[in-house]
């Protein structure tokens, strides 16, 4: 059972639609008790960094997420959901992030923002290239670059996929990236 974190923002339904289409069982997760029923946690993302963190604080979900990650359970963050893993973001300097990954989120300095559209993602460990759909104005700047599993380039090169122990993050929206996006979700959803 995949828990889709409901934190007031986000495109919960698009993600749920994609998981349903793939036959992956899922439920909205908005309370600490829900964590007992799930085996994977997915943090979707549309919205802004500050309000998202504030909502997590208000709903007392931050401790539950920390415990979840500490216990080695799988967690996937999509777009803003992944950005929340960082310590901070230039989008909302007054808000602290989850700090699961060292580093911050930076605003694109060059080119059109938001970065909306399809970019070809290049994996760092092999020569695979895949198209994914991106919608964002901020990008990840992790301290430990070894966690970057794939890169994309708009006017600047930035991390597209981040993987660190049980933590996986995608800057793109797999639920909106056609067949390749569905494959990405399927791989994560089916790996135990």
């Amino acid at each position, binding site marked *: 059972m995949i828990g889709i974190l409901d934190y007031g923002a986000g495109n919960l339904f698009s993600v749920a639609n994609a998981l349903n289409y793939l036959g992956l069982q899922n439920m909205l997760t908005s309370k600490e008790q829900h964590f007992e029923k799930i085996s994977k946690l997915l943090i979707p993302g*549309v919205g802004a960094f500050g309000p998202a963190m504030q909502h997590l604080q208000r709903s007392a979900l931050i401790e539950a997420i920390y415990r979840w990650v500490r216990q080695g359970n799988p967690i996937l963050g999509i777009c803003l959901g992944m950005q929340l893993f960082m310590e901070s973001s230039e989008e909302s300097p007054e808000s602290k992030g989850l700090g699961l990954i060292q580093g911050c989120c930076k605003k694109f300095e060059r080119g059109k923002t*938001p970065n909306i*559209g399809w*970019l070809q993602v290049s994996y760092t460990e092999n020569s695979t290239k895949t198209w994914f759909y991106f919608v964002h104005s901020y990008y990840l700047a992790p301290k430990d670059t070894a966690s970057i599993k794939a890169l994309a380039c708009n006017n600047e090169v930035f991390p597209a996929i981040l993987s660190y122990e049980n933590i996986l993050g995608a800057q793109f929206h797999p639920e*909106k990236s056609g067949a390749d996006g569905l494959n990405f979700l399927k791989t994560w959803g089916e790996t135990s």
Partner: protein
Amino acid sequence: MKSIRIIPCLDICQGKVVKGVEFTKLRIMGDPIAMAEKYYHDGADELTFLDITATVESRSTIIDLVKEISTRIFIPLTVGGGIKSCDEIKTLLRNGADKVSIGSSAVLNPQLISQSASIFGSQCIVVSLDAKKMGEAWQVYIHGGRINTHLDLLSFAQTMEKQGAGELLINSIDQDGKKSGYDLDLLQALSSKVQIPIIASGGAGSLEHLAQGVLAGKADALLLASLLHEKTMSIQEIKTYLNEQGVMVRC
């Protein structure tokens, strides 16, 4: 590098995809779900649904439609047509739309753009502008191109960008339906004035026109209706051609 997006546009009337030859003469082109699925599998990068009647009944029809389509099509979906309030935007986004396209209301109530962008994010707010050339400049028209607002298009586009629009859909009234090519001066002028992505619509009749829209006009995306609906060309043909012209497309 970002790929240029090909966006089929489905004009919806009474649950069917239609083509408006003139306002009173609507030709039925097909079933929206079947057409949307076909375009998705043909490689469409996004889909746009326009509620061309924009009545209370037609809005609920289009909500049901997007809800259904979002369970089987996994690319961004935009809905437009008569959107006037943040509540309507919220309903559409909650029912499967990823973005909304706002036309007349952006002119009549520009605060709607800043409000909706601050609530839902710029990425889901597309401002749709109908432009007509007047001397050396262009003016903004609303209500399906029937009313001239006398607003200068380029400065209004900049205002929309400042208010928080995430993308601009630009339709040239002069070129619309002529199939003689985009108003490239308009696209160029616009893309030099704003930083947000520009979606070109209206005027293309050939593969060469589409390439010009991107290469000369600097459009970031191409919105296509009858060229696809009437099978003048397929999405694959378009992408192959654009690719040959050095335009990055998703394949």
